[in-house]
């Protein structure tokens, strides 16, 4: 049977991709950002998944205002790298996992979450920047990403976006879906976007370290409390684009300590997800960069 062994959380700032693509990663401005992912790249090599279920948002790339799906799962065999206006990022195309993706779609819809099934879409920086951060720079022609990726796009562009609680519950449904897939697959689930940032208006550039770090604390130790944060708190405290953090709750909801909340180990301690890495840095362009790796302890 397939199972989720770990979750990864990271910001997906487009300028990080540009810094990598233009060879700026060793500049003093960028060096501290990439330093925070050195552990993670090695961890990826040591814990290579068979499939990554990657939760991100499309930034007016595959979805214009013609169609705005709240939750969209990519079931294609492969996904091209989008031209977001600067030309496509020079990274390998993304290979999908149509069998597992279709299985998850079927199972999650039967658990009452209405997903949009997408058989053709280009993927933007929301999906490729996390891959670059975790897997390192890849040549578009000679290299490949280490494994297939299932893109899962969440609407955080047009209000109302799904609530944190809805996302957290959806993560639990995704975990069940993965566990009912017959093939033995090691699956990672990634939640991306955030942390505090605002890209618009006279309030652009807002950063809130206290909110971000409290969110990281809650996400690790009390994810149900993180899931209870209402939209308006993200907007007011973490900036209009800080709302992207609801996507982290999908990944967190899929961890086994959430489903097995009441379980204790032999010593009577609650069995929780194990934090392997935590990183926070301000700024990358307009944004606070947050990053976390959690492993399932069961």
């Amino acid at each position: 049977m397939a199972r989720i062994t770990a979750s990864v959380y990271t910001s997906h700032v487009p300028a990080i991709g540009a810094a990598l693509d233009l060879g700026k990663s060793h500049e003093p401005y960028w060096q501290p950002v990439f330093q925070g992912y050195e552990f993670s790249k090695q961890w990826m090599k040591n814990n290579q998944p068979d499939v990554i279920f990657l939760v991100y948002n499309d930034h007016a790339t595959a979805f214009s205002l013609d169609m705005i799906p709240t939750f969209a799962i990519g079931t294609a065999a492969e996904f091209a790298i989008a031209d977001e206006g600067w030309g496509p990022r020079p990274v390998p195309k993304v290979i999908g996992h149509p069998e597992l993706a279709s299985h998850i779609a079927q199972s999650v819809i039967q658990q009452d979450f209405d997903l949009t099934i997408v058989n053709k879409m280009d993927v933007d920086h929301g999906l490729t920047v996390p891959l670059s951060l975790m897997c390192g720079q890849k040549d578009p022609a000679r290299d490949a990403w280490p494994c297939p990726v299932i893109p899962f796009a969440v609407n955080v562009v047009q209000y109302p976006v799904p609530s944190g609680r809805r996302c957290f519950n959806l993560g639990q449904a995704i975990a069940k879906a993965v566990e009912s897939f017959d093939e033995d697959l090691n699956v990672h689930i990634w939640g991306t976007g955030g942390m505090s940032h605002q890209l618009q208006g006279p309030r652009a550039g807002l950063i809130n370290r206290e909110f971000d770090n409290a969110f990281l604390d809650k996400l690790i130790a009390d994810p149900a409390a993180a899931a209870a944060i209402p939209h308006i708190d993200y907007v007011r405290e973490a900036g209009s684009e800080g709302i992207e953090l609801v996507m982290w709750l999908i990944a967190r909801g899929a961890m086994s300590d959430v489903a097995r909340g009441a379980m204790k180990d032999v010593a009577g301690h609650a069995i929780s997800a194990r934090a392997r890495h935590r990183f926070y840095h301000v700024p990358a362009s307009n944004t606070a960069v947050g990053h976390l790796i959690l492993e399932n302890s069961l």
Partner: protein
Amino acid sequence: MSLDKPYLDVPGTIIFDAEQSRKGYHLNQFCMSLMKAENRERFKAEERSYLDEWPMTEEQKLAVLARDLNRCMRAGGNIYFLAKIGATDGKSFQQMAGSMTGMTEDEYRTMMVAGGRSVEGNRYIGEDGNAQAHHQPQGSAGQKVTA
């Protein structure tokens, strides 16, 4: 019953909701067209006639021609769509975001490196933070106005 909009009292912020989306549909779809290289070339060659191919309001067209992103936002633009205009002009997201504050590019970058804009005084309209209406424009542009 009207829709609940708890975000209207956040200063310096326009939330892209159903109303803004309806208002800005053609403006944002024009922006989407700039994802194709040949459209970027056509737009750059003759901006006004390219805009005239879209059923946008005159205010939306003038806001685009002026590259006034705050004005574009008020006219229903969404920042992720408007970013395609900036990309066509070769601008980064930081340059675009900064342009909405009145600060110079350098002033905005310096603010970000120093830890970004504080949330203090910028949670509710009527407080005294630097994103409030009575502190616009920010940076040296604002000091000139005061002087």
